[in-house]
């Protein structure tokens, strides 16, 4: 450990917070780093112990390698685990330093200049409206008893809730990346909806404004207490630049009796350039527990970014009559790779799950749907319906579907349908003949293909996502 880094941490500990911008944990994955993170976040002792326990378990775990997309070996000792916020001198000075392709995309999405800068970590002078928006927003939530804050704040202010639920869906030593996250997570969101409360707004605006720097090991915990409802939206249609190549977030959802959580993701991290250089590895663990009877968890994801996307948002259907849903669009272009899908574990009686997956592959990309539907022996009268559709654009891309089905209860049914189609030249010609250019035609056809999933997104976001789908595939036909 460099002495300077140590000194910084010591200073921070004693309240010299003005220079927070320059604080950075030394490279390497070890107990010191974990203590550094916990210390800088002024965490209680139990939290540090929890992290260290995870770290100890991690030592016995191996990085999984069964996935289809392969990637170069990651040297975990050569990574920074805490380096936020960036100092001004490390950040790009102006938009001129940003990949012009990204800027072009912003233009097409209609992202205002200030937001473009913010997304890329460029200091913006203009005061954001958003700060006040966020405050009014918080007031309204607080009145209803809803807690919506960073996970760091929750650890300090709501330790009982965090202690009770953190790691209750994704256990400490679940698998390599999840355990790594438990040891070194930096920040993320925390949501608690009290009993019989309907969250009056999409928990999204706030997030879009504040979460662009939560870093590579994000941790999110959402608890919907009895009879409550919340819709949470993560991500942003605009591509985000990030220096950290590895992203290993953990998201845990808990729905108690009669509660419902709707979790929507739009992921558009940097996919690397046209030759496959650079790009984010998005290795995320997302899992929801329908713990109470009649509870419901619904995942919707639009995955268009990252060099590699590797994730399986899952539902554990414990409560009787609980419902799990997974709606997914995964788009891979150029050299992008995706291995994604879901797991639906039926434990309770009369549990239902529905999986709608739309994979679109263009360029030299590879798109894999991998999903597990498991009905345990006590889950009588349970039902699953799975539909996996793949759309290929061109001859050099690939699409694969691997469903794993385990049914241990004879009164339950599992249904699986899969289709693979190639984008049809005749359809494009038909659209062209009606005056649409190639891009408009592709956008129309692809959005038609994805419709069932796009419909699940919150209204104001669906339009943006639709544009994003089209933009991600630009130039991939003809």
């Amino acid at each position, binding site marked *: 450990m460099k002495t300077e880094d140590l000194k910084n941490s010591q200073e921070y500990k004693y309240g010299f917070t003005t220079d927070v911008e320059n604080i950075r944990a030394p490279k390497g994955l070890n107990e010191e780093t974990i203590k550094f993170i916990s210390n800088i976040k002024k965490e209680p002792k139990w939290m540090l112990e929890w992290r260290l326990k995870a770290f100890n378990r991690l030592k016995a775990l191996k990085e999984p390698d069964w996935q289809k997309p392969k990637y170069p070996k990651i040297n975990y000792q050569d990574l920074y685990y805490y380096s936020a916020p960036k100092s001004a001198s490390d950040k790009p000075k102006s938009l001129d330093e940003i990949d012009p392709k990204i800027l072009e995309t912003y233009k097409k999405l209609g992202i205002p200049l200030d937001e473009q800068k913010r997304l890329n970590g460029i200091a913006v002078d203009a005061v954001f409206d958003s700060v006040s928006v966020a405050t009014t927003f918080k007031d309204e939530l607080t009145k209803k008893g809803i807690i919506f804050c960073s996970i760091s704040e929750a650890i300090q202010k709501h330790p009982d809730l965090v202690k009770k639920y953190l790691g209750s869906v994704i256990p400490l030593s679940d698998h390599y990346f999840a355990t790594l996250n438990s040891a070194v997570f930096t920040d993320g969101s925390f949501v608690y909806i009290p009993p019989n409360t309907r969250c009056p707004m999409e928990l999204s605006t706030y997030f879009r404004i504040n979460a662009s720097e939560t870093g590579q090991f994000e941790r999110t915990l959402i608890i919907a207490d009895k009879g409550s409802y919340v819709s949470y939206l993560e991500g942003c249609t605009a591509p985000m630049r990030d220096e950290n190549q590895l992203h290993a977030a953990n998201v845990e959802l808990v729905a108690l009796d009669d509660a419902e959580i709707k979790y929507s993701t739009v992921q558009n991290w940097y996919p690397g350039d046209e030759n496959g250089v650079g790009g984010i590895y998005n290795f995320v663990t997302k899992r929801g527990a329908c713990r109470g009877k009649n509870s419901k968890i619904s995942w919707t994801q639009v995955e268009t970014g990252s060099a590699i996307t590797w994730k399986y948002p899952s539902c554990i259907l414990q409560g009787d009559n609980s419902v799990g849903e997974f709606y997914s669009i995964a788009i891979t272009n150029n050299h992008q790779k995706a291995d994604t899908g879901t797991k639906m574990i039926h434990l309770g009686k009369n549990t239902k799950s529905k999986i709608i997956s739309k994979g679109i592959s263009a360029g030299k990309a590879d798109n894999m749907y991998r999903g597990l539907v498991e009905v345990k022996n006590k889950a009588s009268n349970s039902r699953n319906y799975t539909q996996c559709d793949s759309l290929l654009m061109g001859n050099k891309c690939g699409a694969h579907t691997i469903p794993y089905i385990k049914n241990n209860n004879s009164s339950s049914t599992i249904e699986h349908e899969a289709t693979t189609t190639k984008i049809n030249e005749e359809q494009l010609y038909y659209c*062209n*003949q009606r*005056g649409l250019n190639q891009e408009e035609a592709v956008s129309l*056809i692809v959005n038609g293909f994805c419709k*069932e999933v796009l419909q699940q997104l919150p209204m104001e976001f669906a339009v943006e996502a639709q544009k994003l789908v089209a933009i991600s595939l630009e130039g991939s036909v003809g």
Partner: protein
Amino acid sequence: MLNIKNLEAKVDNKHILNGLNLCIKPGEVHAIMGPNGSGKSTLANVLSGKNGYDTNGEIKFDGQNLSELSTEERAQKGIFLAFQYPLEIPGVNTNVFLRTSLNSVRKAKGEKELDTLSFLKLVKEKSSELGIDEKFLSRQLNVGFSGGEKKKNEILQMKILQPKLAILDETDSGLDIDALRIVADGVNSYKNKDNAFLIITHYQRLLDYIKPDFIHVLSKGKIVKTGNSELGVELEKTGYANFI
């Protein structure tokens, strides 16, 4: 309006059109008849700019060389093709398709895009003229439409896009007796001194409703006979044997 000189078209070195000449003036209705495989649909596709043909010769549309224009530019300039086999596009709402299409054409002409309300009014008017139930328009484009319904939908698109030159490729095939009359009425009411029609058909009965100024017989990629509206009646009796 349209002037075709010595048009040849090949696919994979197979000759389909072999020196075709045709001149269409504004206000005219031309019919093309001819045996299966004689190249009628190929002509329609070459005119509208479908990829994959190796062509020679000259096609001028309003004085402009068509080979310089992409498929969508031709459409925007007023060439419309009612397909022999209209395509199904799953997930795409028919209304949305119609509107996107109309607005692309309008944009290209420098006209303002139509807002939702005016568009819906227009569609309502045109579809009721063709006896198309509005419910159809909220369905996915051509998906699950019957053969005749697809053809009617093509004519609806024509009436909405208001092309200069409408090419109808066997629009009458698959229509029931009433639908045939409705479609013919649709064409007749749209016809004026500034636009023109190229109607590909196998049957005289359509030409009973839509009186063509010229009937051409296409055989092996060439026009082998041109006559007035009586030629159709003759063909109906004798078949193509006398001409090919």
